[in-house]
Structure formats: C-alpha cells, structure tokens
C-alpha cells in the first residue's frame, strides 16, 4: 500500500521523464547568460561584433584570459582580483571578529549601559550603506581613507546581523558550561577561547560564506571610494572597462573578466553548499 501511495505522489515512468526534462530546461534557461559569457570569452572580437556570435566555445581561451589578467583595460584584472579578495576577506573576518566579541560581552556580562549598546547595535541592522552614501563618503574622505583597503572594508562591517546571530547562538549554550568554568576559576576570556569559540565553529563558517559573497559582490561603495584604478575591485571594475564614447567595447576581455569575477564566489557557494544554505537561513531569520 505504502509503495502504491508513493507512486501517486512522486513521479514515475513517463511523468518522471517529463519532470527531468522540465528541470533541465529550467536549468538551461537560468544558465544561458553564464554560458554565453563563457563562449564570448573564448572567441575573437571579430566573431562577436558580427552577430550572431557563435554559441559554442572558440579556441581563444588562453589569449583572452591572459590579456584580461595581465593587461586588462585600465589595470590588469589580476590586480582587481587581489583587491576584491582583500576586501571580501577583510569584511568577513572583521565582521565575525567584532561580532563574536560584542555578542560575548552582551550575553555573558551585566554592565552599565548594556541595553543602550544592544539597541545601538540593533539600529544598524536597518540602514544599508546605499542609504547613507554621501555622509559616509565624507567621513572616509576626512580620514584620508579614499583608495585604501580600510576605506573599502570598515564602513561595510558597521552592521549588526552577525552580532545578532552570535547572540542567539550564545543564548543556547548551556549555563552549566559557564558555571563550571566559573567554579574552576577560569577567567572570562579563557572560557571564551576554550568553550565559546570552538562551539561557534559551524556558525562562523556559515557566516564566513555569506559575508565573503556580500563583500565580493559590493559595487556602489568601491565605485565611490576607489578613484585610482589600482584600487578597483573586479566587480566594480568591469563597468570601467567599457569605453565612454562610441568606441566598440573589447567584449572578449570584458566577458573573460566577468567570468573571473564570478569564479571565487561560485566556488565558495558550490563547495560549501550546506554551510551556505545554513548561513542563508540563519542570517535571514
């Protein structure tokens, strides 16, 4: 009986094939823009400017990618990749470190003004950097941090999502552990390093994935504060590769750069899929 019912709910036979076909069609449609960018990054400029361009890869893979990586348009793409890497890791690590510390303070201590700080941090949840760009730009310019990694990183770690996540998690750590640590005369920081941090490992990893992608994919902020091409990140640098006038864009190099820009986050997401999904669900709920 159970098996027959099963057959009524999950698809079998022809229906199963149809389901797979629909799914594959869906995946193909979703994937098409990426495929086309890849094809464009392996053919010559001449093949692209005489439409329609081919739909299968050409033989210029190495030439186009080498041209992008080592000469680029304004600056070698390798430089932009490095800047993006520093920014993404800086944001992920920076945010995780300050959030772990402040969540620990808020959960495990009673100190004057604790609630004020808590609400202060809570408020930062609400306002994306896009909304306060002009004054934030002035602050960063005032500190002389234009065209610097500090300027790229600090304004984007001023948000409380991670603090909240850790606070929620710390509240689930059994009180007995803190009690035992206190009885043993362990100092708070010893408890933090030996118990709290190791227990938070999975949360830290999941958050790292989310924050890495968040940092890597930033556009508006690097666009404003990196006027020096040497400091451009790859995601904002692609648009700078388009010529301003009527000149024809160097499509194969631009598309190779687009592919290079998506490889690191795609690797992170696909290889850490389970952590990523967990981080996504945790950080939104």
């Amino acid at each position, binding site marked *: 009986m159970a098996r027959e019912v099963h057959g009524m*709910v999950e698809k079998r036979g022809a229906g199963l094939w149809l389901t797979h076909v629909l799914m594959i069609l869906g995946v193909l449609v979703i994937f098409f823009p990426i495929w086309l960018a890849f094809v464009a990054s392996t053919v010559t400029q001449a093949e692209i400017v005489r439409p329609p361009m081919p739909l299968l890869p050409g033989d210029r893979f190495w030439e186009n990618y080498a041209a992008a990586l080592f000469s680029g348009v304004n600056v070698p793409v390798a430089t932009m990749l490095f800047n993006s890497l520093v920014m993404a890791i800086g944001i992920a690590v920076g945010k995780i470190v*300050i959030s772990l510390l402040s969540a620990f303070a808020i959960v495990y201590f009673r100190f004057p003004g604790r609630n004020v700080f808590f609400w202060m941090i809570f408020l930062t949840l609400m306002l994306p950097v896009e909304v306060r760009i002009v004054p934030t730009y002035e602050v960063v310019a005032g500190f002389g941090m234009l065209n610097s990694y500090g300027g790229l990183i600090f304004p984007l770690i001023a948000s409380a999502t991670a603090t909240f996540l850790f606070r929620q998690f710390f509240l689930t750590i059994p009180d007995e552990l*803190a*009690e035992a640590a206190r009885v043993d005369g362990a100092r708070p920081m010893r408890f933090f390093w030996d118990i709290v941090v190791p227990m938070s490992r999975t949360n830290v990893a999941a958050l790292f994935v989310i924050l890495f992608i968040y940092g*890597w994919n930033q556009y508006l902020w690097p666009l404003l504060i990196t006027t020096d091409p040497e400091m451009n990140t790859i995601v904002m640098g*692609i648009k700078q590769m388009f010529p301003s006038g009527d000149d024809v864009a160097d499509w194969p190099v631009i598309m190779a750069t687009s592919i290079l820009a998506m490889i690191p986050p795609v690797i992170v997401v696909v290889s850490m899929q389970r952590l990523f999904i967990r981080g996504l669900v945790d950080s939104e709920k």
Partner: protein
Amino acid sequence: MEKRVTFRGWWLPALLIAPQVLISAVFFFYPAGQAIWQSLFIPDPFGLSSQFVGLGNFEFLLSDKFYRASFVTTAVFSILVTLCSMIPALFLAVIADRLIKGSGVYRTLLIWPYAVAPAVAGVLWLFMFNTRVGVVSWYLGNLGYDWNHVLNGGEAMGLVVVASAWGRISYNFLFFFAALQAVPRSVIEAAAIDGARFWKRFWTIVLPLLSPTTFFLLVVNVVYSFFETFGVIHTITSGGPQQSTTILVYKVFSDGFVGQDLGSSSAQSVILLIVVGLLTVIQFKFVEKRVHY
C-alpha cells in the same frame, strides 16, 4: 531571554564591545546623523556655507515630479522583480521536490546565479541584449522586433527587471525547496489516497503550508529590489532613458554624487531610511507571527 550565569566586571565587556561600538559610531551613527542634519539645509553653490531650510528639502522633493516619478518607478520595479524571481523559483522548486533522485545536482546548478554579483549580472544581460552585438536582440530583430533598450523606456525597465530577478531565482528556490521538503509526506499521501490530483493538492495543501516562506520572501525580495539592485541599473541603463529606470537609491547617488545636490540627496536618504524602517517592521511582524493560512 537572559543568561542566569554571568561574569563580573565592567571594563572587560567594555573592551570587548568597544570595536563594534566604535565602528558603528564612526561609520554608521555619525553619517546617518549627518544625513538627517544635512537634509535640513541647502548649501550655497560654492559649498562654503549653507542655509537652514527646515523641512524645505522634503517639501520640495514631495512636490518634485521627478522624485514622485522615481517613487512610481521603484514601486513598479520592485513588484516586477519580486514576481519575476518568486514565480519561476516556486515552479522549479515544485518540480525539484517531485524528484526522488537528482534534485541535489539541480540544486547545485541552480545556486550559481546567486553567487553572481548584481553588477556582473547586469553586464551579462547587457551583453545578450546589446543593440549592436547582442545575441537575443539580433534574433529578436530577425523576428521583426526592433529591440532598443537605450531609447525605449519600457524595454529598459524589462531588461533591468530580468537581470535583477535572475540571481534572486536561486535564492528563492533554496527557500521554497527547503519549505517543500519540510511539508509532511503523510499529509500529501493522505490527500492522494482521497483522490486529490497534483494541482488540487498543490493549491489546497502545499501552497497554504508555504505561506510563511512566501511572505518572508516577499518582504526580503522587496528590500533587495529597493537597495541591492544599484549595480544592475548602473551597468545597464544608468537610470535612463529619460529617468525611466531611476529607482530611489539610484537617485540618491545621481543627485548626491553626480548632481552634487547634497541637501536633496540627504533628504532622499532620510525618506529611504523611513521606508527601510517600515519594511523592517513588516518583516519582523511577519517573521514573528509566522503567518499561517
């Protein structure tokens, strides 16, 4: 919820919380305060002094037809992005949920676009619809349709909507898929025994059970289309043609940085701040109450 067991002392927690408080104060509270403060002034053309105008900037904005048009554009844009990202995602999730084997492979392939930055997505879609070299626009031309998003506002809107919704399909798919997997099999099977066909089961059982996820995603996608689509618009249309794709966040940028109109830009920031506040309240309400059928 509070801890029963806590540590004593005040200087250690103060030290621990200091980095976050410092960074929030310098890069968040001060700029946000500045935005509110500057919104009450009009700087003179040389930026040497500014004149207090109270709510003048707001009054001007709300009577400005370009700003009102930008509100409408934002509303249309976010509704379309939300629909275009949620409906295909739900459809794909329902199909993937019916497969016993292989759904993991599809999931892996479908989450790719999430990792693609909005600005890069913009470049990919721009490439396909480019008026000179685009493959899709070329085939459309062969079919007798003359695609030109550089001149046609409706087509420009369509293109930025699709480019913005594309990466979000992955995100929504993951949430819908997880929610579908959590629907108890026994309920579905009971309905199947009672003779309910697939669509009947979907409308009467599955969809109502998905309502918390659906409402959550509605809010999150609206927030996304308000604030995180700047890259798409900047790479594809730069707000044009004739401001037909200038959403509110884009206008803060173009008035503040390109137009150098700081008073107006700050007032716009404050209005957006109120919008974010409202959306956040709605989000918390829905998430707290876990909307049910």
